[in-house]
């Protein structure tokens, strides 16, 4: 009956507290296995290219980048096009050195106004360049891809 439905609705007002997650302010509790933006450990990476080969979407390319933020030595590291990345975790599973790992970054760091900004260089993956600060600073940092 219609009345029954109304009673249910009234019950919901009083006994059903809102279940909404207050998204932007209160960050959602993510599971430990959540697959967000990858993190690169430059000291472990040997530049073997297994991740690039295993990527189902060809989103990874091995490029030359500085070994550390202060060092001038260059080595081969993966760079990821987040606009292509499926976040499937295959590259992380297949990495023989466990140089790549999951993080829980999936919001402010990687939402962009421009498609070209979605390329994540090894420095950005290794968090040597702070993603948020880099974003505020402008395009120059983000486009910096040492080849």
């Amino acid at each position: 009956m219609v009345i029954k439905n109304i009673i249910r609705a009234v019950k919901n007002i009083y006994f059903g507290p809102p279940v909404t997650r207050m998204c932007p302010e209160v960050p959602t509790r993510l599971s430990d296995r959540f697959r967000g933006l990858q993190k690169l450990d430059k000291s472990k990476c040997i530049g073997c290219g297994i991740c690039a080969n295993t990527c189902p979407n060809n989103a990874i390319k091995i490029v030359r980048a500085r070994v550390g933020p202060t060092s001038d030595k260059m080595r081969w590291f993966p760079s990821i096009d987040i606009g292509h990345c499926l976040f499937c975790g295959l590259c992380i599973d297949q990495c023989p050195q466990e140089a790549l790992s999951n993080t829980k970054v999936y919001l402010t760091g990687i939402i962009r106004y421009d498609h070209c900004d979605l390329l994540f260089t090894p420095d950005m993956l290794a968090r040597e360049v702070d993603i948020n600060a880099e974003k505020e600073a402008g395009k120059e940092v983000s486009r910096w891809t040492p080849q």
Partner: protein
Amino acid sequence: MAVEQTDYEEIPGVTLTDRNVISDFVKKTKAQDILNWGRKNSLWFMVNAMGCCGVELLSTGMAHYDTDRFGIIPRNSPRHADVLIISGYVTKKYLPALKRIWEQMPSPKWVIAFGDCAISGGPFYESYSTHQNVDEVFPVDVFVPGCPPRCEALIQGFFELQKKIEAKQDRGTEY
């Protein structure tokens, strides 16, 4: 921008006011801030679930994420909508329909590319059937990567769009 401007058809009795004195005045003064405040707080998006991301799009409007908090509500007709969310692969068959829908939306209007498929084609970027590089066809304002992105990411995408509108940097308006 991406929509061809040359094919624009003049309808009798309709005058273009984009070079109007009044709108120029509005643009230059504080009035624009008020308008932008109204616009950014009532972004009605169009229901257009197109793939995996479409399911997350549905969930976003529901109780757990509740976009209504920001005044963002779904509308079915493009005539009432402000935001087109491309939430999936655009195939060669679907592109004309999507273009029609986009053109039939009244300005000011914005596009959010939600998910990898909309940004780059996602896992289907080399398919014989999908249309690549959607951002060359639609003036995309915000790219939300993920496959599919979580619902929070869409809300964050709307946030970024609001910031863009507030700063008068948005692309989809064609004032």
